[in-house]
């Protein structure tokens, strides 16, 4: 498991923002994830983060997700995760964040995109 630099991509469709994250999220890279969420939150209060290609995430990454969720909630929205790895699901359970960060149906955004 070699460390992989984090890359992010943001798509906005029908008022919903989808952030694709790819790589490792840790103390070094969590600021970049936070920046991506901040950008997404500027265009929508409904943000989905696709984490299928996040090979590693630690507590600093979870903190950024919680921060993003809080920001979205302030404007009546929410932040959801899409396609979390089994390890990330386990981390969400360990930290009791499974009741805070909802897991999105992976079809949601695709449907929204195809209807647009």
């Amino acid at each position, binding site marked *: 498991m070699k*460390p992989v630099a984090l890359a992010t991509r943001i798509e906005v469709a029908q008022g919903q923002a989808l952030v694709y994250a790819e790589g490792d999220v840790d103390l070094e890279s969590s600021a970049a994830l936070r920046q991506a969420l901040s950008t997404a939150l500027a265009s929508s209060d409904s943000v989905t983060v696709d984490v299928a290609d996040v090979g590693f995430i630690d507590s600093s990454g979870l*903190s950024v997700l919680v921060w993003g969720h809080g920001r979205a909630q302030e404007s009546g929205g929410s932040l959801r995760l899409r396609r979390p790895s089994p390890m990330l699901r386990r981390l969400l359970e360990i930290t009791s964040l499974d009741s805070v960060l909802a897991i999105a149906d992976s079809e949601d955004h695709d449907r929204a995109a195809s209807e647009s």
Partner: protein
Amino acid sequence: MPVDTKGILLVQRSDAPGARLRTALSRQPELEVIDEVPDTRTAVETARRVQPDVVVMNVGLSDVAGNGVLGSLREVAPGARVVLHAHAARSDGPGSRYWTGRLVDVVVDSARSPVFEARLELPDEPRSVPLARGLLGELLGQWELDEFVASASLLLTELVANAVRHVPGPCAVELTHSGGVLRVAVVDTGPGMPDLQVLGASRIGGRGLHIVTSLSTSWGVDHLEDGCKAVWAELDSAAQGAVVA
């Protein structure tokens, strides 16, 4: 050389910290420094020739991670144990006396017992976190302990991140595998102690030690000489089946 003396190959710069380490190792009755080389390429050639018991390598001197030196050493000298360190980073300052002594201990232990050991010193910068994780992955692969990678990467990342965030000055990662137990430890010179936070849905941080608690079989803090402490976590190979990568 007496039968019970272990041969050391030093891979390091010929500077003052290098000389200090060489002297400290030479004082050990059971160790003999059989050669000293300044770079990893020469290290592989020399290891092939002298077949050392232990290779003590300063990873600060060149691009050790990424050039496959660990794999090459294993090929040319399969019996040699490798102890990695970046001793030059701590030639002076708080903890330096402990640091040299501890490194010598690690080399002595490594020469004495069938234990995999590695030690790496890192600066207090965020990039140390992926660096430590990368080295862990490389070593666990080399030690054929892939079942530990997912959990150990998280444990080490959390411990190194704590040291980088809360303690000024370098920290050191120590990895030991013995009797089916992998121990990851991070040594720093900070007086503060790890503090478990109450988990809260709206809290931004404070989850690292909960992750360490849940994924490790045990963890704790050792008080060391010269103002140093080690925060460590252990993983049992029998428990690794429960963790999904």
